[in-house]
């Protein structure tokens, strides 16, 4: 069937046709690219943290000895932890429902999730800046309902960052959890019912333990991604509520202090890699990260 168009394709030159490359040789271009433009620059940046302005651990002492920086670390961890818990709490019922919905409704919800996930990050963050502002629709609605008399400060603080990050991380929890729930054999739950378990018992003793690996994996992934997030915290948090990624860029761009920038980057990298190693140990697979 294909022979007709095969004849139209020019045959590669003889030298090319007989060329035979070992599989390892084939991986060299990609390896070279990543080593030159990824591994070496990152290592150099980390090295500068112990070499600039003078050799030693001075940058780390400054970073861990200042309450300003420690507050940035704690901000980062608290926001990431809250975002992780909230996305899991909301994402699990949605993933569960998706496994039950009839095809049309299911596809509709999937379409919405994908649209939100594929929309440019800046567009989504901008939308939340507008929604959450003092005269934004959320404050107006709450005031219109008489629930509040003064506009709530929802943006330029950690509340805004948490709302925006939850919005962005939700799809990363829902999609993998949906895969986990779909794979669960319904007859196990039937068996629980036949043995006299109430719905709540079946949920706590059978369903949740089966979903647990998915919850842990999804939670770890969201936590790690949140720790290193830059754009959303920078725009929704304002200058007074910095997170770790923004601190790194501040050191480098505004203060031109490469030593401190490298030190902060090393802290972020260490935590990320440690959690990633934990994930690999627990599940043996790589989670799909994001920005």
């Amino acid at each position, binding site marked *: 069937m294909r022979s007709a168009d095969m004849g139209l394709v020019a045959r590669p030159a003889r030298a090319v046709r007989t060329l035979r490359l070992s599989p390892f040789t084939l991986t060299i271009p990609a390896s070279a690219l990543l080593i030159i433009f990824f591994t070496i620059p990152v290592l150099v940046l980390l090295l500068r943290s112990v070499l600039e302005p003078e050799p030693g651990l001075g940058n780390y002492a400054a970073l861990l000895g200042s309450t300003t920086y420690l507050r940035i670390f704690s901000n980062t961890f608290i926001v990431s932890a809250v975002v992780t818990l909230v996305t899991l709490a909301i994402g699990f019922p949605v993933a569960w429902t998706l496994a039950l919905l009839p095809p049309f409704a299911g596809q509709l919800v999937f379409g919405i999730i994908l*649209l939100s996930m594929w929309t440019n990050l800046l567009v989504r963050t901008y939308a939340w800046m507008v929604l959450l502002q003092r005269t934004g629709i959320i404050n107006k609605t709450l005031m219109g309902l008489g629930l509040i008399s003064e506009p709530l400060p929802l943006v330029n603080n950690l509340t805004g960052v948490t709302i925006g990050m939850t919005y962005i991380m939700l799809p990363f929890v829902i999609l993998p959890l949906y895969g986990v729930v779909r794979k669960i054999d319904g007859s196990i739950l039937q068996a629980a019912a036949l043995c006299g378990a109430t719905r709540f018992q079946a949920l706590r003793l059978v369903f949740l333990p089966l979903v647990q690996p998915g919850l842990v994996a999804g939670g770890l992934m969201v936590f790690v991604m949140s720790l290193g997030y830059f754009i959303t915290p920078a725009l929704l948090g304002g200058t007074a509520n910095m997170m770790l990624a923004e601190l790194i860029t501040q050191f480098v761009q505004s203060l031109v202090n490469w030593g401190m920038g490298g030190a902060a980057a090393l802290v972020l990298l260490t935590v990320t890699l440690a959690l990633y190693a934990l994930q690999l140990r627990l599940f043996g697979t790589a989670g799909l*990260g994001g920005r």
Partner: protein
Amino acid sequence: MLLHWNGLGWWRWCLVATTAAVACFLLLPIVFIAALSFGSSQWLIFPPPDWTLRWYQELLADPRWLESAWTSLKIALVVSALSVFVGTIAAFGLVRGAFPARNALKAFFLTPMILPVVVLAVALYAFFLRIGLDGTITGFVVAHLVVALPYSILAIGGALEGFDKSIEDAAILCGAAPLEAALRVTVPAIANGLFSAAVFSFLASWDEVVVAIFMASPTLQTLPVKIWATLRQDLTPVVAAASTILIVFTLALMLVVALVRKVAKST
């Protein structure tokens, strides 16, 4: 019982209500921004006092917006092509190889996806400042290629793992050279994976902000950098107009991907 509607009792209404609420939550900002981009309020007040196309006119009248969009498109297309090319070669090596460090290499290829992108951005910025690539198209392309390559390797590697190598071997037995068999038998068979790799790589570059902020110069900006720089100053509705156009592009791309998948399935 918990995985059937009938066994759920009143729980099912809680589940449906939560899902409906989350769907609204996910949709709300997107619909809202699209609506406000036609509103006349400079301060993006909702509901808008009047409707207007003013922000779209301002957007199109400013050559810097179009320029940055064009720059983004050029970079994303080149990155997509290079990423598929390098990714295909690497995926062949990884899937077909039996060398000792294979799994370590696989993990290495995925690291740019796992590490916080801000670290890569800062590190490459320092490197490019030194070798004079900062603020150049080449710098952008190389930086985005690092970000996009893991997606490519994953998508193509996955397709290649699902392909039965004995078909390629049969072609070789019938007299095809190894490369010829790979190009004419295997590559068409994994076209689906190549397409996904191209789309993911394109989006990885087109939507990328963090690295781009560091690669950009006053004269060379991508669209996300332009939006970022504008947002740092004020919340102008012009950004809402640009956002709406981007959302329409996203929808169109989703439709194309869905259609291609459907066609690929039916043949």
